[in-house]
């Protein structure tokens, strides 16, 4: 686990999310962590990162954390405030570099479930469904997935429902299904580490461990086997200034990051 004396696990996740984003690119964000990570990235290394919201907000100067991806903050001093048709069409046409989503359940190919736990027709637990997630994961060039609590319940061998496409059942499956060429999951971020996907097998592969986390902890908290690289990196840590921005400027109430 990261050093709890300086920051909590959620603050760390937001920081890691930001660190994966690049300047002068577009990012299509889901609610919560993805927005916070994008805001932090804009305030640090990626001031020209353009944030796209599915309801029509494009490139706002976000004045505070939006609670919804459709509210007025999402087009505050924006470049454009248009429509879902516009946002989704630009995405499908290839104008989105990064998609950024939270997830409830994921498998080793980066497929996501946010629909049901249990049977579809009479579920044990009904979740909200795709929202824009299936769209973002289908259209964005590179998909980033954030799962706040990696565990055997969230990293599963078989999803109860495949809401949102990762690499489906492996190499070439996306293209065979008709999804846009060259797209797919790019990074997965949890409280334990940062993951990518193996080029050949399209399976989840560790990139770096967060400070203080061991490989065994990563393995124990997954139903499926996680591939390991030759050399495991250590994830970077946030500076005091980054923590200050998160706590004071982005989420002062602790809605996403906690208190």
């Amino acid at each position: 686990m990261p050093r709890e004396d300086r920051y909590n696990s959620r603050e760390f996740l937001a920081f890691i999310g930001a660190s994966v984003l690049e300047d002068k690119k577009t990012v299509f964000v889901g609610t919560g962590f993805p927005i916070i990570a994008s805001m932090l990235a804009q305030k640090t290394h990626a001031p020209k990162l353009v944030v796209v919201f599915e309801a029509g907000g494009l490139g706002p100067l976000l004045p505070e954390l939006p609670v919804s991806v459709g509210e007025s903050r999402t087009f505050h001093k924006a470049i454009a405030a248009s429509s879902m048709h516009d946002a989704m069409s630009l995405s499908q046409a290839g104008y989105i570099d990064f998609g950024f989503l939270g997830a409830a359940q994921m498998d080793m190919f980066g497929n996501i479930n946010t629909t049901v736990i249990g049977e579809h027709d009479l579920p044990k637990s009904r979740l909200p469904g795709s929202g824009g997630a299936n769209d973002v994961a289908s259209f964005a060039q590179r998909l980033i997935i954030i799962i706040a609590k990696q565990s055997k319940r969230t990293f599963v061998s078989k999803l109860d429902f495949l809401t949102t496409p990762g690499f489906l059942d492996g190499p070439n499956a996306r293209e065979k299904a008709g999804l846009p060429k060259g797209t797919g999951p790019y990074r997965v971020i949890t409280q334990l580490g940062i993951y990518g996907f193996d080029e050949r097998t399209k399976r989840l592969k560790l990139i770096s461990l967060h400070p203080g986390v061991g490989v065994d902890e990563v393995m124990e908290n997954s139903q499926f086997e996680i591939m390991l690289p030759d050399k495991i990196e250590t994830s970077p840590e946030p500076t005091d200034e980054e923590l200050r921005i998160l706590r004071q400027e982005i989420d002062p109430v602790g809605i996403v990051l906690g208190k």
Partner: protein
Amino acid sequence: MEVLKEGKGELLGWHDPDEARDWVLKNKSRELKDKTMSAKEAVSRFVRDGDFIASGGFGHIRVSMAIVYEIIRQKKRNLAMAGKTAVHDLDILVGAGCVNRAEVAYSFGHELRGLSPASRRMVESGQCKVVAETSNAGYQWRFLAAMMGIPFIPSRNLLGTDTGSYSSCKVVKDPFSGKPINLIPAAYPDVAFIHVHRCDIYGNAQIDAILVEDFELSRCARRLIITTEEISDNEVIRREPWKTAIPFLVVDAVVEVPYGSHPCEMPGMYYYDEDHIAEWLSLSKTQEGVDTYLSKFVFGVDSFDDYLELCGGIRKLNYLKRREFLREPMVAPWRK
């Protein structure tokens, strides 16, 4: 057209394009005539038990709550609803027992505020059925197809997933590229209700800022109820016709309801009433709580003005305006 795959979701609100045209021809007036009426009259005239309904806006933004409450008040039953990032509206309509079927893009959640106790309870106990799954773009393009009067829109989402398998889409081989392509069927809701910033008596409506999918939804719904913050003179509309998001041709009723989106946001006017939403989220943890909420805020009031008084009156409304313009700090009373 060889179908490679076919979703098993119910094909909600689809009509043959010729039938859809025929309905328009017989039921939609082309006359510039006064369509103002009360919410009560609009709902009793245009919403029938069993209808497929859709609400405008997005999430807790620009929602016609005046119509949502009136549907509950009139005890409409067996409604199917478009779960097109339908959040508070769908939650309360399911909780109240009006809606028992949904096609879901995003439902049963309140975004950052957490999941929806009332509607999830109904789904998990089998009292509300999810008859099809889709995505936000899926719904957007169902409405686009219907607005255009065509049977479907091709797309490259929903492919390869259970969302697609539980949708009403069909996958075919595209005759131009030879690759598989998803076909999203048109959706014509029986009734839609959309809250706007201003509208004239004929139904020419302006929406400030993002349209979300209301450009398409307004044009494809068989019946369209507009609620508006204010009735504007037709001359105001004609002065800046490029601001008209919805033309009178597609509108059946115009209802003036100031603050009619409360407790949801009206961009540029007032922000969410988080206290009220938190109260709903807390009460709706039990069916008794749902009943308490409804008898107080829906059945217990005679008008939307009375309801606003109950929610905190002018002091609250002025606060929500300051909050919209970032002159009050964030609050999150629904946080545990």
